[in-house]
């Protein structure tokens, strides 16, 4: 009797695992954070931009940064930026956008 119950439980577990085997794991939502541009410096061909979000907010040096288009949530074409320094309350980025483009698109979103 006990042996047949064990076989039954094993079958249920096996069936359950097979049923979910070829279903993709639903990815957990990546935390996206947005920050305001507060400083702009022109250094050679690059623009150095400071935004008000830093390690206190969980930003890390390996995070990816991307400018948004104006006030929208759409990513700006060519708006990728490299994180070059993360301070407590601010992060410094390097971008190849022009100064005019930075002035027109002042929100940067971060993702890990």
């Amino acid at each position, binding site marked *: 009797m006990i042996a047949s119950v064990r076989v039954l439980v094993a079958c249920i577990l096996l069936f359950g695992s097979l049923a979910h085997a070829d279903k993709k794991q639903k990815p957990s939502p990546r935390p996206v954070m947005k920050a305001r541009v507060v400083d*702009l410096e022109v250094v050679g061909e690059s623009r150095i931009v400071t935004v*008000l979000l830093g390690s206190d907010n969980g930003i890390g040096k390996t995070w990816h940064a991307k400018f948004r288009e104006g006030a929208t949530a759409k990513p700006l074409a060519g708006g990728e930026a490299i994180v070059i320094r993360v301070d407590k309350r601010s992060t410094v980025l390097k971008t190849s956008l022009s100064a005019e483009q930075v002035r027109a698109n002042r929100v940067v979103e971060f993702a890990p």
Partner: protein
Amino acid sequence: MMFWRCCVLSLVVACGSSPKPATVDLPKNDVAPAQPAPAKPVAVAFVLEGHELWIGNDQTDVSEDERYLGALKPLEEAFAKVSTAGLPIGSTATVITYGEHALVRHPMAPIAKLTAAAFGEQKDYYGVIDRDLVGGVTLGLDELAKVNGAHRVLIVIGDGTDTNADAAKAALPTLAKRAAAENVQVVSFVYKGPLSSPGNLLAAFDPSTLTVNSIDAVGNELEALFDGFTPQPVVARSRNAVALALLVSGAETWMGNDDIELAANDPSRYTGALKAILAALDTSPMTEFPAGSQGAILTYDDRVKTRRRMGPIEKIDSRAFGDQKTYYRTAGNELVSGVRTAIGQLRNVEAGRKVLVILGDGNDTNNEAAKAQLRDLAKKASELHIEVRAIIWKSALSDEDNIIHELDPTVSTAKTSEQLTTQLVAVMKAMR
């Protein structure tokens, strides 16, 4: 640096002065006529950085994470204390700010109409991410160029950087030449904001630019600057008139920092000597000196600063010293440079009696080299008939050594701050 600043400022002021009257022979009694001060109006262009974080945004609707105090509020408070009432009739001022572009915020108008409100409010600067320093300086010179018949002064206040540093490095020396060619006196202050980059491009425009740790220091400097333009009343100068140079250590730990926001048990919290000095000046105001007596205040830390230029001795008061914030984050002990500058200032003053009073811990940053230098300065003081009176007060961090006796063999030591007050009052009384 301060020495050269004083030289340059003095030279420019002298160049901009109206002609002095012909020399009058001194009368045979003990009173000499004083030189009337120049009455040429002054045209001032304030050129102020307009970057959001430098200005500050704590009074706007930003979130707590984005909140920064900035310079505007303390600058307006400091400016409100600066008197322009004594400036020559016809003096004018304009306010220019620079962000993405430079703009005239307050057009050139009688300086009496200029209030702190002319600098605007924090919300006016919200979202400004640029610093067009070159544009600000250019517009300042343009506005001054429109004024004729006045002594022109350009006052630049910012963090000393520009959005485009490379372009600014190339442009600012050219603007410096333009300022010189147009007889514009340049005074500039660098005050670093919360996210300011290091470096000081303003030095390429004004080699004498003064870096300050507090905006109060800008207020003190402006007051001293405007004092210099204020026509002095024509008072008969007694042959016994005194010229005093009060040279005081300006290092934070010597002046004290216990009024600044440091925890009561913070090991870097010191009471210091400033309060004792202010108590002396409050107890015994600098009055009842012979007519025409003058005084100046200088401090020394890692550089020498003229806190109050040589002027009526009555103006040597507790306010002229500022508060502990004025000396916050200063360090160093350039005693020899301080003495040299003070003697230089006394040499250029006409007075029956010249006195150099030194308050400090009796040491120099480099005591070995300073000994011989102070001996030479003692000789120079003697040749110029300058009396030297030194008082030593040791701070908690002062070295026990003492080399000031090379300059003043009769130096006295105050063991407590009360003694410092008493001894300073006694020295001042003996000068009257």
